[in-house]
């Protein structure tokens, strides 16, 4: 037994794994958004009765006015790429064979926007300001945000 560890083989590590996983409800507003997406293929926004702005994704409350939002309406028209990035690493920090083009897309007259991958276009051809259309997976839906992607408009 020593006062100091001075050689490579001396330090020990103890492994630990939390061993839990999670199941998240979508919430009052999220339930509405994903029902509309599932049943009608719409993206719905909520409207603040105080400031009048429309929010995407919809929310139970306006984060500025702090009042309840209970009016929902579909968002129409093409979206605009506000920013995008090409992701090369997985969650395990390994190199992805096929990089993902992740884009944040906004809609005219709507506060906020949605994050989803742009598909069917080379990363070099994506630019800020580019118009895109939402594509909703209907063949094998997951009823999650993974059902949403963008294609050039």
């Amino acid at each position, binding site marked *: 037994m020593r006062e100091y560890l001075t050689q490579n083989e001396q330090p020990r590590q103890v492994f630990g794994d*939390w061993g839990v996983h999670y199941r998240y409800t979508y919430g009052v507003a999220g339930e509405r958004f994903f029902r509309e997406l599932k049943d009608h293929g719409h993206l719905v926004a909520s409207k603040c009765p105080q400031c009048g702005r429309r*929010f995407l994704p919809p929310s139970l409350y306006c984060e500025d006015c702090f009042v309840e939002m209970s009016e929902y309406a579909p968002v129409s028209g093409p979206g605009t790429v506000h*920013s995008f990035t090409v*992701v090369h690493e997985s969650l395990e920090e390994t190199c992805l064979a096929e990089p993902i083009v992740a884009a944040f897309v906004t809609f005219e007259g709507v506060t906020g926007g949605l994050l989803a991958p742009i598909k069917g276009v080379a990363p070099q051809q994506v630019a800020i300001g580019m118009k895109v259309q939402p594509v909703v997976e209907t063949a094998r839906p997951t009823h999650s945000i993974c059902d949403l992607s963008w294609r050039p408009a």
Partner: protein
Amino acid sequence: MAGKVAIVGAGYTSLRAVSPEASFRELVFEAATRAYQEAGITPADIDSVVALGEDYREGTCICDEYVPDQLGAVQKPVHTVTGDGVQGVGMAWMLLQSGVADIVVLEGHSKASNIRHPAHVEAMALDPTYVRPHGWNPLFVAGLEMRRFLHDSGVTARQAAQVAVKNKRNALANPLAAYPAEVTVEQVLNSQPLAEPLTELAVAPPADGAFVFVLANAAGRKKCRGRPVYVEAVTWISETCNLPTRDWGRAVYTERAAARAYEMAGLKNPAEELDFVEVDDAYTYKELQHLEALGLTARGQSGQMLERGTFDLGGQLPVNPSGGSLGCGHLHDASALRALWEAVCQLRGEAGRRQVPKARRGLVCSWRGVPTATGGVAILSRR
């Protein structure tokens, strides 16, 4: 008010990529021993403790359990802030101003090397409904921010890369730093792309280490012998963490925190009145974005000023003389304490080869990292 608040002791460990010979307790004990010795106090003098910690990074659920022993703070009023070092200073400042404590200890550490799947851990911070299910490496948030910042400000990717060159070079003069190096702009730009335009050398690599500070109000200072560095202002602001409604190009949290801090410290022309700044540089572009938000450059001018050498050691306004997180290593929330330690060294004139001549007042600007829009500003002075 209980008089000015001062830092009277600053303790540290060296920073390194891995630290297998020391447990987190042993790292903190080393830093605390230094801080208390410098302040001339024993644990009996400590009225309250503020610690920084986030459970998923510590690997411990309710990580505040493991704070007191290594600080000699068993059975004291101890609490943890899940916030950065500037927020920690803020809590200490309020405890001291309220008079409930005269001497407060602030602790933060990182054992980032112990996390086996760091991207999985950081991804847990993403909204579980609208963002996380995509399964993207959370660096994508920084990639989106960087692209939009470059687009809005006109700063170029080369200029952003220059931040890594400067900071890693500054770190060569910092004995604590884990990642000092001479690198070129080309090396930064051509390193492995992670979330374009972000490349590997544009990201501050994680490091292990610990910092402990002793803070005191006027009554507390009577019990301490350490050379005081005064906290002239401390502010913290959170913008929304909700990615869809945030500003992707600007650091609005820093703009607001800075405005309050300048008012609190009575600064009219901060670019003239500050002798150096330590700003968060978790990613290269963040340094420039934060400098613009601090109002220390006109919007869109940070890149050109950097190229002109304004922010170099020896420039008009040295930025990250310590080497920043890019040069020292990223300690998560304790990164701001690394910056605070640099500010204390500079203001005491103890920064050695990195000393900014006649440093009288400095600023620390923090950010809690992706996906947050939370950060703080602290202004420190010699008098």
